[in-house]
């Protein structure tokens, strides 16, 4: 890495930690921190060395604060269970839960993903993109078709793979609302998937993509399990010339 890039990461980390980095820039750095070791080290440096700037003064806490915290902790422990899936919220709450972080992170993730493809000298004109996020709004998988190719390109974020099962990708149709299988990932997080004509039509017709945990080899009944790892809406960027 060049010295200029080193200096840039230092300055970026300093402004992130000090708080002068705001808005979309700040959100972009948060995402970059998830996988950029050098940036993580620089941020950790400034967090450690700037903390002593804090005055020693303390401010008494309202008596109800602890009760609020423990109430939320107990609710968290009761409703999230072992799969992290909240079964007690309404459908509207679940839709809002998925949509807001999807929209919020999509522009930034798209920028970083397209930038990384362009660094590999892959000319990218995005056609369809979906950013699949988990319950906490963190990106798990970005799926993209580009330049009219009948191919899905994937960018995986750091997340575990089931030890004795598979991950399966599903597409939910805009036209009839049916959920149909797209791909099964057994052990490897593949980065490119050639699409059959049928699956290409599935993708171009999809309202959203869903990633579930399934038994090894994928769902035996061609229906998604209840273990939803991530989901995200599909966005069409441009018309393609590919024949359907």
């Amino acid at each position, binding site marked *: 890495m060049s010295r200029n890039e080193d200096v840039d990461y230092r300055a970026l980390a300093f402004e992130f930690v000090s*708080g002068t980095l705001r*808005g979309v820039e700040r959100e972009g750095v948060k995402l970059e921190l998830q996988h950029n070791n050098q940036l993580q080290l620089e941020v*950790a440096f400034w967090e*450690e*060395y700037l903390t*002593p700037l804090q005055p020693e003064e303390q401010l008494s806490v309202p008596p109800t604060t602890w009760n609020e915290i*423990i109430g939320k902790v107990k609710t*968290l422990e009761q409703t999230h269970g072992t799969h992290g899936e909240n079964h007690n919220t309404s459908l509207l709450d679940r839709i809002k839960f998925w949509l807001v972080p999807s929209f919020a992170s999509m522009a930034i993730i798209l920028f970083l993903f397209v930038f990384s493809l362009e660094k590999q000298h892959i000319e990218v004109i995005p056609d369809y993109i979906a950013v699949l996020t988990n319950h906490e709004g963190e990106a798990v998988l970005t799926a993209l078709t580009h330049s009219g190719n009948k191919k899905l390109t994937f960018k995986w974020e750091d997340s575990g793979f089931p030890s004795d099962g598979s991950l399966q990708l599903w597409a939910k149709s805009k036209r009839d609302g049916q959920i149909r299988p797209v791909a099964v990932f057994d052990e490897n997080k593949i980065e490119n998937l050639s699409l059959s004509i049928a699956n290409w039509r599935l993708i171009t017709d999809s309202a959203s993509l869903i990633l579930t945990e399934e038994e090894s080899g994928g769902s035996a009944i061609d229906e998604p399990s209840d273990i939803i790892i991530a989901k995200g809406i599909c966005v069409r960027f441009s018309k393609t010339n590919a024949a359907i």
Partner: protein
Amino acid sequence: MSSSSAQYRNDDHLIDLIARCAIKDQHSLKQLFTATAPYLNAVAYRIVKSEELSSEILQEAFIQIWRYANTYRSDIARPLTWMTSIVRYRAIDSLEVERKHWGNGRLDEEQDTLESQSSNTDPEKNTAASQLTNHLFECMKGLSDQAKNSIQLAYIYGYSREEIATKLDTNSNTVKSWLRRGSERLKECLETKM
């Protein structure tokens, strides 16, 4: 200083409590809260300037601490550094949503605090300060007043570049330049002491 507030400076004690939170020991979360909440509340309050908002931020921060206690690594950050960062980032994010305007009286109060901070941080007076704290304040002395004030206004009080520019009667590009040069000099100095 009371025994509970003294405990917020006891790294080993806090590391142990965070580890117990990672295995979902709610009693340890209570102890962690008792030991650190007044300090962290002040950290949040200095940024958001509202007791109601700082209390909300404290709640969100402790929920985050509870949920992510298993990710804390004592070899990367001291426990209070980790917790302070969580609180500060929450407070800064809340500024994007609710920004309050302060009158001149509030700004003067912050200027007074900056002056008293600089006199309190003379390492020769503060014999109980950690080595890290000593290094920081020694290196801060080598910065220009503009860089020093910009860093403190940003880090302690959550000022944006534009707000620092208004406060110090300049423009945000100049502030960005002060911060960049200040951080470079600070890191060069700190690296010689490590």
